[in-house]
């Protein structure tokens, strides 16, 4: 374990200037209305338009994305060019599964702290509804034979060898949400946590209904100002996260059937994050860039951490990633004004809370003599989370950091902790502070 090797947080201040995101659009079984690049460009257009600097003034563009489409190799570069950053601004795509958006921010922060860059557009995007559907290997081999067949007779011979098994597609989304090492899909890892921490179906459903209620209240109060309306070529527009169910109650959610441990499990589509499409982008700046362009600063990235744990318990990642930040910055739970822990599964967030209260877990896995204690639920995900908003895997990390800044500002608060669990058995966390000039 290399848990506490890191002594220092960022060596130079990293400021967050501004940010925006698209509404998150629920995948409804068909290809969604926007390719991933379109989503990010829509989020970025208004963001760029309101800046004092030109898109060309940006030093680099870093975007997290787990599964770009076949037409979107290095999607960050596509986004940069389409936003008018110009040919000379480099751009690259990062991938750390569910935390890719946060990875983009962390990499940007590191580059600013080291002085390599001064002004970075960073964030994440995912069009999960457009995750690739692939040909299986038998089909690929058959195609190889077919294209090698020269004469019409050989072609016909090859055709006679085509069978139903050849046509069975590989659904990229399902494979992507299945751990490639332990073979469990993400929902099954959530079931493991439910068992381990004895969290009831009812507790999960309550937590989920609350997520919807909080998001509905946030929209009604006008607290989702970071969302830029999406306009489609089909004449439709989208200005709210469309997976929000205002009528959601624990009773309604109780009716849903378990999806992963089919007969006897507890994790349902209703208490898990929604499969969605969306993008979130932020502008990060060094002190130098802030001065040069006279930028209004809304916050700064104070510290970040990445942690590893058992892939079969990946949902506990936040507990592992947040703890070192607390220690390094000598913070107690009360020192944090607000918390954003991405809701991949209700049970997974609840398990993180349980882990921090559990003396055994804290000592065994987090190396702490005393448990950290209870994260107050009224300060956690105050405007909803992945269950109501959706979790476009590449984008969520950027979304929670951006929204944290909005929450801090609204409550005139200072310190916010953001974190996600990561498929494959990791956790990522980022400590944010609001800056008031």
């Amino acid at each position, binding site marked *: 374990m290399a848990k506490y090797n890191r002594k220092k947080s960022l060596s130079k201040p990293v400021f967050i200037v501004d940010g925006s995101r698209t509404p998150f659009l629920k995948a409804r079984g068909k290809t969604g209305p926007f390719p991933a690049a379109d989503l990010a460009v829509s989020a970025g257009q*208004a963001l760029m*338009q309101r800046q004092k600097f030109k898109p060309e003034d940006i030093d680099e563009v870093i975007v997290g994305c787990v599964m770009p489409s076949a037409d979107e190799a290095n999607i960050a570069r596509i986004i940069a060019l389409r936003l008018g950053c110009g040919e000379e601004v480099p751009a690259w795509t990062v991938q750390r599964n569910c935390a890719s958006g946060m990875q983009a921010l962390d990499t940007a922060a590191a580059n600013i702290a080291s002085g390599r860059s001064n002004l970075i557009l960073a964030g994440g995007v995912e069009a999960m509804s457009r995750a690739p559907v692939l040909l299986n290997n038998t089909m690929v081999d058959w195609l190889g034979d077919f294209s090698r067949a020269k004469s019409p007779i050989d072609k016909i011979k090859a055709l006679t060898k085509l069978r139903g098994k050849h046509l069975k597609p590989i659904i990229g989304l399902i494979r992507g949400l299945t751990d490639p090492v332990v073979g469990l899909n993400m929902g099954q890892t959530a079931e493991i946590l439910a068992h381990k921490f004895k969290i009831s179906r009812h507790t999960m459903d309550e937590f989920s209904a609350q997520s919807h209620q909080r998001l509905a209240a946030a929209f009604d109060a006008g607290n989702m100002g970071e969302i830029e309306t999406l*306009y*489609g*070529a*089909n*004449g439709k*527009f989208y200005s709210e996260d469309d997976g929000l169910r205002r009528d959601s109650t624990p009773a309604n959610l109780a009716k849903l059937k378990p999806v992963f441990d089919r007969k006897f499990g507890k994790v349902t589509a209703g208490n898990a994050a929604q499969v969605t499409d969306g993008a979130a982008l932020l502008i990060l700046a060094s002190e130098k860039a802030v001065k040069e362009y006279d930028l209004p600063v809304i916050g700064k990235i104070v510290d970040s951490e990445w942690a590893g744990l058992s892939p079969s318990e990946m949902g506990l990642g936040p507990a592992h990633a947040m703890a070192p930040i607390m220690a390094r910055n000598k913070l107690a739970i009360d020192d944090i004004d607000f918390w954003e822990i991405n809701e991949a599964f209700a049970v997974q967030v609840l398990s993180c809370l349980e882990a921090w209260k559990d003396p055994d877990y804290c000592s065994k896995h987090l190396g702490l003599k005393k448990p950290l204690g209870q994260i107050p639920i009224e300060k956690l995900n105050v405007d909803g989370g992945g269950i109501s908003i959706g979790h476009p895997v590449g984008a969520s990390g950027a979304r929670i950091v951006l929204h944290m800044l909005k929450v801090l500002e609204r409550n005139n608060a200072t310190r916010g902790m953001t974190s996600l669990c990561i498929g494959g058995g990791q956790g990522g966390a980022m400590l944010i502070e609001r800056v008031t000039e």
Partner: protein
Amino acid sequence: MTKNNNYMHWKPATDDKGILWLHIDQKDASANVLCVSVLEELETILKDIKQNNLPSGVVFISDKKSGFIAGADIKEFTEIESVDAAVNHVKRGQRIMDEIAELKCPTVALIHGFCMGGGFELALACDYRIADDGSKTRMSLPEVQLGIHPGFGGTVRLPRLIGAPAAMDIMLTGKPINARKAIKLGMIDYAVPTRQLIPATHRIIMDHPPLHKPKRLQALTNHMLVRPLLKRMIIKNVAKKAKKAHYPAPYAIIDLWAKYFDDPKKMLEEEAKSEANLVIGETSKNLVRVFFLRETLKSLGKTNKGSMDFKHVHVIGAGVMGGDIAAWCALRGLHVTLQDRHEENIAKVMKRAHKLFSKKMRGDRLGVIDAMDRLMPDMKGLGIPKADIVIEAIIENIEAKQGLYKELEPVMKPTALLTTNTSSIPLEVLSEVLERPERLVGLHFFNPVAQMPLIEIVTADNTDKKIAEDTAAFAAKIDRLPLPVKSGPGFLVNRILMPYMLEAVRIHEEGVSANSIDKIALDFGMPMGPLTLADTVGLDICLSVAEILSKDLDVTVPESLRKMVNEGNLGVKSGSGFYKYNAGKKEKSETNDTNADQKLIQDRLIGRMVNESVACLRESVVANKEQLDAGVIFGTGFAPFRGGPLNYAQHEGYKAYQERLSKMEQSLGGGFKPDNGWEKLA
């Protein structure tokens, strides 16, 4: 490489492989045209080739960035007075092309950019055609748009090369063909990237592959047994778009091919005769005039060349006009922010824009994405402080517009243009609220924006001249024709169009069927009948424009129009107006009045337009007669072959036309009273 620089326009150079490169670089011109002096030099060069050693190949190549050869010199055309002079000119061209075709060595036309008219005919005379596959490459035979047809052997060579259907389509429409399409049709032998043009030429001259032949089916279309049948089909199609009496050229093209295809020599001779007759004909004279009117308007957008660089347009109001203006600007490469109070409106525009881009950039998926990215929805008006020009296209309401300007002025860049698409509110009133009232200019587009080439640049007495010129430059930048007009009711186009449409309504009130009235206008050469036009525009809009005009001008609003609007019959959009519509499509209606005096109806319709034109000229709504005719042609589609309303009156005789109006005044009343301006004209 040996060079011979005795020529003004041509730079022949022989390379080490013995290939003669004939570089055309017309002196003091931005594009090459086949004017007399260029042709004369080419004749000498060809003679020289024949007398001296034959080169291993001859390559025609242009040194101009803009393209290969843009066609014949249209100015020289206007100077041709007699049939004989015309025949001589055409025959010289034909002779030169024949000499190229008869050269004993391989000949290549190396094409980039524009390759039009005579330029393409020269390429046709070569053995091989190689074109740059870039998007700027455009080949066409656009002569028909000037009322003539190809005269340097084009009508003879093109059908032989690619078959009749494609050749006829190209010659009858004059539409430009890109390299990709050209290779598919067989117009060119190779389409290659710029970097491969020279290597491809070397290879072709070395290998001289067999010359292009039409595919079997293409060749069959020229067969003497097929031609009569095909001819009938083609004529049927052409007749839908152009009447023979108005536009003889397309019919001449079909005739030449149908009658003389089997005898190329004879066909060339007939081509020359036919072309000569067309050149000195009235239609061609008027269409050439329209061509120059277009150039004149274009040049009005260039007086302040380079003084402003338009990159970002902010459009406020995502209605039909605002939305279409925004989409058009994005299509033309500008960055556009589109503001509206309602997301629904912007969403509708995005859909229309996507449709427009997809249509204009057929198959260019990336181009469409690019254009969509340039069009940014902007509910918050973020674009205002960054825009080089703001176009206001909100509802026609003085308070709303003034309120908006008060908000805009302090936020806009001081150098940015502030323009309005108003069609009815005087600029003087709108600009009252501005700190700098002299900066407001009218930028009046016509519907549908993507099809109507004209923009009226409206100025009041206090408008800054330089700013108005910059606004005209903006119009030119987005490929529209700027027409400076004085602020006043209806400006130019609506003011002239409205009396004509209202007269049609009045004739309809008298019991003549809408069909008959529209047919008479179509027979005159209008692109659309006045009552169909009214239905399309919307009768409510016609009524409101008519009422605004009736305050200041001698226009009476027909009762029947008011009644139709009150009853909710608004035209196409409501499903019924002067015609009935089913899902936007006109239903068949009857024509019942064969007794109506057709000539009188035509005079009544056109007379109102002509009389109003004279009034506008007298009041200096536009600068001169040419600009007036141009405005009416490009703003209303007024029969182009008649050269505009004033040109038409002049052709009929000013004095005679004035008398015709007086006579109509006696029998029909005030609206026909000849304007005082007639005295000056006559």
